[in-house]
């Protein structure tokens, strides 16, 4: 057994039982890395599968599983927010009317045209007819097209240059 070294003994005596305060921020760093309180941990363990399931459902677009309304597309949302969403009724009616006119011009009427006699019948007589015939007839009769309607129906591609010039002269610049 070797005798204790006096230098070693002196060093040990100098350093034994000494204390030094670490920086105060050390505890904060340690506490952040420590596990949660058991109750919190249990709660987290309970909620984690639910959260995971919800995340998965959202990922898979299973909207019907969740009480979430399907969000409107961005463009639609932007449009709704930028306008008051008040429909221009007159414009819509106009559009409907144009569509109807176009359809009527393409499809020939299936009903027979009125005969010459019928055409020359006085209006008073026609008014006295049963209501089952007259509305059908009036509905299917081609309406008198206004100048604005004509403009739509003229196929410009099929017009020759002379015809186009004439039309422009007639309509004005």
């Amino acid at each position: 057994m070797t005798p204790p070294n006096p230098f070693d003994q002196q060093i040990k005596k100098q350093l034994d039982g000494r204390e030094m305060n670490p920086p105060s921020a050390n505890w904060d760093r340690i506490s952040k890395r420590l596990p949660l309180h058991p109750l919190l941990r249990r709660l987290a363990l309970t909620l984690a599968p639910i959260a995971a399931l919800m995340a998965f459902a959202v990922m898979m677009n299973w909207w019907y599983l969740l009480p979430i309304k399907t969000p409107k597309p961005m463009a639609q949302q932007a449009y709704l927010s930028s306008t008051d969403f008040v429909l221009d009724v007159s414009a819509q009616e106009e559009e409907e009317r144009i569509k109807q006119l176009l359809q009527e011009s393409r499809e020939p009427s299936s009903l027979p045209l009125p005969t010459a006699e019928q055409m020359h019948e006085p209006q008073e007589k026609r008014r006295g007819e049963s209501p089952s015939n007259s509305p059908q007839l009036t509905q299917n009769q081609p309406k008198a097209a206004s100048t604005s309607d004509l403009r739509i129906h003229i196929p410009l591609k099929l017009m020759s240059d002379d015809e186009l010039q004439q039309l422009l002269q007639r309509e004005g610049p």
Partner: protein
Amino acid sequence: MLTYLSPSTAEDQLIQGCLDGRRSYQKVLYEHFAPKMFVICQRYAGRSSQAEDILQEGFIKVFNNLHLYRGDGSFEGWIKRIFINTSIEYHRKAIRKHFYQELGPLQDPGVEAKALQNLAWCDLLDFIQQLPAGYRTVFNLYVIEGFSHAEISELLGISCGTSKSQLARARYMLQSLIKANNNQ
């Protein structure tokens, strides 16, 4: 609350509170042992910042392994052992590197006992930190912790001869530093 109880009861309560995961108890334990353990970390570390890292790692290990404490020995001794092991693990690579350094012949620098007595402990700690990691570890384990060369060789995975030579060179270097400081 804990100051009015007997030390063992207070310690038991503290341990139980920490085992229950109560943050306030964990903080009390940290505040009680951190100053003592920080000196240990400083002795094994090369720099103060490393000592802080070791202190953090050590306390995380203490809190995570508290359920393994059986109460056979002193609680402070158990914590101290964790900090020593953490320090060795932290410097393991550096320690092994310094074991294989080429060393020149040693001469006794001849430090007077009075010079050592006049030295402030903080300065002594600073000199120990200046030692290479291998010297520093063996010196701390042998001189301060009281480990035998056989235990040190087992702990560090080196031979007893290496442990002895490292201790001799650590002493020599430390004496040279103290002497140089005394001559200034």
